[in-house]
């Protein structure tokens, strides 16, 4: 059984936001809903400054805090580690929104259902890669099986020593950032 994860190289990301557009297209989202949001960070002192963009979406935490709080069990963690939402069970209580450190959930403006990234699992199961990964201009994103030592992502993690965001909370997120 694979254990899916993602690596995002913030040194390669140019902040073009194409991943968000591709994601919205893939998931037929309205303009006000998206599964990807961005945070920015400035470092250094003038004139030697750096501006970095961090694309943020569901981190598919191994001990995802959103799953145990969901009263209807609409949130489930699949055996391959992907956290999915059964929107037919979602009542829109927004408890998952309140406990997610990554603010990765979005409340559908039409239905009130809460939804989020699911690593485009239907494409992945057909052998493809998530829309945000395949659309990325600079190949800043790598997706794959974290447990397969020969996978591109496992090698990249070993080589680049990326870090996880808010790792101190112990939710074991599966998106890694190269800084």
């Amino acid at each position: 059984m694979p254990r899916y994860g993602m690596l995002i190289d913030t040194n390669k990301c140019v902040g073009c936001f194409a991943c968000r557009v591709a994601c919205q297209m893939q998931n037929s989202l309205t303009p006000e809903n998206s599964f990807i949001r961005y945070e920015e960070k400035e470092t250094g002192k003038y004139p030697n400054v750096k501006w970095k963009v961090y694309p943020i979406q569901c981190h598919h935490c191994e001990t995802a805090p959103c799953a145990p709080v969901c009263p209807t069990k609409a949130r489930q963690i699949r055996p391959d580690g992907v956290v999915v939402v059964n929107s037919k069970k979602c009542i829109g209580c927004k408890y998952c929104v309140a406990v997610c450190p990554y603010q990765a959930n979005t409340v559908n403006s039409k239905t009130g259902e809460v939804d989020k990234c699911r690593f485009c699992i239907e494409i992945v199961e057909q052998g493809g890669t998530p829309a945000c990964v395949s659309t990325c201009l600079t190949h800043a994103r790598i997706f794959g099986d974290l447990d397969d030592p020969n996978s591109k992502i496992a090698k990249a993690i070993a080589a680049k020593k990326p870090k996880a965001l808010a790792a101190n909370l112990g939710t074991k997120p599966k998106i890694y950032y190269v800084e």
Partner: protein
Amino acid sequence: MVWGTLVAIYLFMAGIAAGTYLLGTIIETFWSNRGLEMIRKYSLILSFPLVAISSIFLVVDAEAGLHNPLRLIYILANFPNSMMSVGTLIIASFQIITLYAAWRALYSKNQSAVMRIIGSVMAVGLTVYTGLLLQVSQAIPFWHNDILPILFTVSGISTGFAAAIIIGVYADRRQLANLMPIKKVHILCLLAEGLLLIALLSNAGKIDGGAQSVAKLLTGSLSPLFWGGLVTVGLVLPIIIEAYELFKNHNVIAINNGLHPADETAATIDSELNSGFSLLLVSEGAVLLGGFILRYLVLAAATFISLI
């Protein structure tokens, strides 16, 4: 804001429902001969509609459930893992208990001892739950604070007492003279609330994310509501009025014990009772307003942890 005014109303009303039930049950059990019959009756009758209406606000806020009511049958699916499922069960069983209590009170009968114990445990459980619901979130440090459930419990009792006093005294002004035992507990609740609030803010102020919430409240966008609404109207004003009344009541008792002016007519007593009711309406109304503002502010001050 993850949760807004609708959830604030829900937390507020659930707190009052628990507080009125507790007051009614306390009077029934410990203060049955103190001339507080109307307050007992109306606080027990009030509790059921309050908890029932509060849960409507919760459902209205959960929009997807509102559009697809059948989905609500899943809401207990994650008991006891999800605090939301736990809370739903508490609210549902508390509605049954309060309905029973209201029925007994309507026919001027007492609840059975067993129901009083179960009901009181559930009432405290309900207010603790309204705080625990938020306390669970590690993502929002201001909420992830053990003081929050205690603060909501004390505030629930305090607002419940306020609501019960207003309705009970409105129904029978003469009870104004018998409020001493309630007022003593009430002023202790208000003082405790102030201390708990200080403890909550100083705890949260020390941690990343929590400090931003505290800044929002003390000096930021929420500061007018915090200082004007919660601190001044919700705490300082009622504490001053209640302290003044307790002090005055001591004097009245002293007068009654020997120096009661014989020429006091029924008309002057009546006008005294009416002015007493007006003052009570101000102080207890302020407590209620403060209770709502407290919950609104706790929800509005939520700030997520910083990631990068």
